[in-house]
């Protein structure tokens, strides 16, 4: 389910990938977490060990599921868009969706479901508004391929790419509160500017948001 496998990303002192570390930092200890597209469970294992989190995982690729289960993690094989609906509302404190939203068929429904199942959602995605993407399209007139989004248009799993501004607009439309936002470079390191403005839209390769339901919204 990892749409973009950032194998080249640097690792932190805890040997967790930088982008995953930022995700892990958002999670309050001793909470319940669902990691959607958890891969072989590296983040879940870290959250369990370091933060005492009661973690569950959903992963589409069977070898990764097996690798996670054999570490003693609670992971089921399944597809985000088919299987998230099975979870009852308010089951988790956090639902994590890392670099996958843009690869779903119905990102809008997915976002709604994340915040039905979880009280908070931690969502990251590649920013299609980055200047390199915009300039590439402007100059060459062809679908941009960048270090963050390297696949050709016919090869990419990313069927619903969006810009940070698009994402923020959708959150407003869905009555979702953005609690925190991080503008990130290609390595997943935090940029200094606000994550929701035009500046971030142009200068961040990726973004990470912590979302929650707006009170009195349709979710409650």
């Amino acid at each position, binding site marked *: 389910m990892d749409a973009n496998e950032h194998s080249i990303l640097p690792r932190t002192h805890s040997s967790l990938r930088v982008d995953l570390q930022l995700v892990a930092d958002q999670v309050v200890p001793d909470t319940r977490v669902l990691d959607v597209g958890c891969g072989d469970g590296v983040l879940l294992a870290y959250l369990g060990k370091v933060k005492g989190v009661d973690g*569950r995982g959903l992963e589409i690729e*069977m070898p990764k*599921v*097996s690798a996670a*289960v*054999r*570490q*003693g*993690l*609670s*992971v*089921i*094989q*399944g597809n985000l868009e088919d*299987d998230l609906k*099975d*979870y*009852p509302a308010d*089951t988790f404190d956090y639902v994590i969706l890392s670099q996958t939203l843009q690869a779903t068929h119905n990102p809008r429904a997915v976002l709604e479901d994340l915040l039905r199942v979880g009280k908070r959602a931690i969502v990251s995605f590649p920013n299609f508004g980055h200047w390199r993407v915009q300039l590439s399209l402007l100059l060459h007139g062809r679908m941009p391929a960048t270090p963050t989004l390297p696949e050709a248009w016919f090869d990419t799993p990313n069927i619903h790419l969006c810009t940070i501004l698009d994402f923020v607009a959708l959150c407003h439309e869905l009555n979702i509160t953005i609690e925190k936002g991080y503008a990130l470079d290609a390595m997943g390191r935090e940029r200094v500017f606000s994550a929701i403005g035009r500046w971030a839209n142009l200068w961040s390769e990726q973004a990470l948001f912590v979302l929650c339901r707006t009170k009195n919204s349709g979710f409650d």
Partner: protein
Amino acid sequence: MDKTQDHLQPCDNTTVTLTEPLLLQSGITFGPVTIAYCTYGKLNPERSNVVLVFHALTGDQYVAGPHPIIERPGWWHHMIGPGRIIDTNRFFVICANVLGGCMGSSGPKENNPETEKPWGPRFPVITIRDIVLAQIKLLDHLGIEQVFCAIGGSMGAMQVLEFAARYPHRIFCAVPIAGSYRHSAQNIAFHEVGRQAIMADPSWKQGNYLEENTVPSRGLAVARMAAHITYLSEPALQRKFGRRLQDRESLTYGFDADFQVESYLRHQGYTFVDRFDANSYLYITKAMDYFDLAEENNGILANAFKGTQIRFCVISFSSDWLFPTSESRAIVQALTSVAANVSFVEVESDNGHDAFLLNEPEFHITLQGFIDGTAEIRGLPARIQD
């Protein structure tokens, strides 16, 4: 037989006769009930290291170590033993012959103490619920309040689910393998073919063959042959036998077993009758057919597991068409919908339903991880790595 098995003593098949009769699902009170069981390993002082293994339709309590009747090690010998996945140096393994079975537990083959004649067709019809109830009574007898793990494949998986649903406080983790929460129409249909084969054998004598000193071996063999096909997969049959001929160069144009696959099935059938009772086959297949955990919960399987604290690991095999992955997935969906702690793996294998009995590395590694991880959470000592 490989070396580690040498260290496992033959099971001292123990029997216990329950002090009280069982109230069966059918409403009948039945007793006295005898349960024959095997144990392996040692019970720890806290009584927290019990692994309860449920056997399948034609299995028995001899899960590991030498088998007293057939000259083969127990049916899960590569799973259970010293240093194995279910390590008898760490766990106290219990496996009981099911109620209705023919390896020492109360069943149609055993004598009715009142008449001192075999029960035969007068044995009451039993269900998976009754089979599990008998084993709960065994745990009571042994003074075991909670098992660490309940595990089983096929009909064993049905017992795991029944146990987990009905006695949630008596189980820490549950591993239903290659199973289902209900027997499908196709599965009932295959069982009915088997039962009809037995009952069509003139030696069956309306179930009274033991008193008449006959054995419906032809009927039972045919039942086994038909069932055995459902345990394999088409690719596995093709790989093992293809259209190869049995000990001959060319077709004989007769009804001999020309093909290896025919000879194999005949062998499966005729060796089966030496170790299994035809009436037991009728009773146990019926118990499986009656099983439907959803039906018992107003048609909603999830209701069976509301609020469960049990950690589940559901495992299926990709080429199993008797208990296909979709059945396991339905169990996982039900568990997910009540926010249960569940892992689910479909193991890639072309060995069909039988895969749960075979040496399937991916299956074993995954299960080992689940058991070790869960044992750690339960506070049991870690496995000694070799």
